[in-house]
């Protein structure tokens, strides 16, 4: 009998993913597709690690997917900086891109090592990232989405280990 692996998914807490903020056109269609694909891969019972707004995004994504596996599962909600461009919510900060690059690499390794003070200055939502379950560390990682389309760094990643 094989041991059950733990599944962990990271999505960004983008409010545009919520149905109450839907428009005629979806401004985050690619992100949504990636997030739904990853969340749909989780098991039936999912532990959510998120702040209050992120929890709403998580609940919507979970409600929008049918999952029937019994793997221990975690859905983590967080994202990188919001200062990547002139038009980013927090305006441009030259430290944002290297911060996100480093955080992205750390996430892929499943061991986010975050400078919380810099994260706060760069409007990065990292609280839940620092609670990434140990199972992610050294696990097989898949990056479904890695972009900053509106000046905010988003990742959709899944870990299995």
């Amino acid at each position, binding site marked *: 009998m094989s041991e059950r692996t733990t599944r962990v998914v990271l999505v960004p807490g*983008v*409010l*545009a993913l919520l149905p109450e*903020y*839907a*428009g*005629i*056109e979806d*401004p*985050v269609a690619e992100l949504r597709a990636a997030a739904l694909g990853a969340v749909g891969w989780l098991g039936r019972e999912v532990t959510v690690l998120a702040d209050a707004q992120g929890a709403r995004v998580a609940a919507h994504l979970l409600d929008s997917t049918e999952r029937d596996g019994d793997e221990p599962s975690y859905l983590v909600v967080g994202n990188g900086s*919001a200062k990547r461009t002139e038009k*980013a*919510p927090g305006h441009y900060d030259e430290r944002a891109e290297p911060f996100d690059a480093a955080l992205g690499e750390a996430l892929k390794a499943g061991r986010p090592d975050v400078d919380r003070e810099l994260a706060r200055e760069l409007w990065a939502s990292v609280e839940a990232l620092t609670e990434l379950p140990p199972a992610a560390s050294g696990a097989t990682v898949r990056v479904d989405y890695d972009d900053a389309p*509106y*000046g*905010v760094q988003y990742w959709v990643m899944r870990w299995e280990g």
Partner: protein
Amino acid sequence: MTLRLGRHAFADGATLMMAIVNRTPDSFFDKGATWEEDKAFERVAQVVAEGAEIVDIGGIKAAPGVEIGEAEEKERVVDFVARVRESFPRVVISVDTWRASVGDAVCAAGADLLNDAWGGADPELVDVAAAHGAAIVCTHTGGVTPRTRPYRVEYDDVVRAAIDDTVAYAERAVAAGVARESVVIDPAHDFGKNTFHSLELTRRLGEMVATGWPVLVSLSNKDFVGETLDLPVGERLTGTLAATAVCALAGARVYRVHQVVETRQTVDMVETIAGRRLPQRAIRGLQ
């Protein structure tokens, strides 16, 4: 209510732009700009490209003038309707006529909707619409003769009169065999009305909407806008759009217009404020 206009069906709550296309040498706004058939055809192509769901083709100007007989009216519109039908299969073709014989000919040529701006002056128009499976616009004129100007017309309650007459006309159309979902009512601003009447109809349009029949409004550059703002034809767009916004908030469904793009933007903005339409694309503050 779902709206069926001849060959075309529209979902509940959809708002529609009906673009005016005059095959006349003397209509008040364009003053004959689309009198030549090719010019009228270019106008159709333009308004379709601008997103108009309906074109309203008219062969006789509304105001008094040289009498145009049936044969002349048919000559102006029937072949033109056939040409538009062939070139633009997806646009709703409306014809602005009060004559049953003209309605019969244009429906045979491909029209979907008969826009009777003169409130049922020809009682057989509803039979023609029914026979062709066409839709009909039932307007209120207070019973005046086609192509006459209002002269000292008064009402106890113009809105009550407009509702009573258009609903009675609508029921008459249904009794004649027109499908219930193919009947539209129109208070007909300025037809048999002074400026105060048209303003009151605008202010109380919600009462017409509450009848449940889809409401068409024809406000575009009309004299009630001109008198309200003391502006000549050609300078009435802003006033027209303000009146349009009030009607949109009240729930009008069809807008008969000269300026499609500006009216569509106005109606979409108001419908979205009213919570009946989503923003096109919203990301600001939601990233």
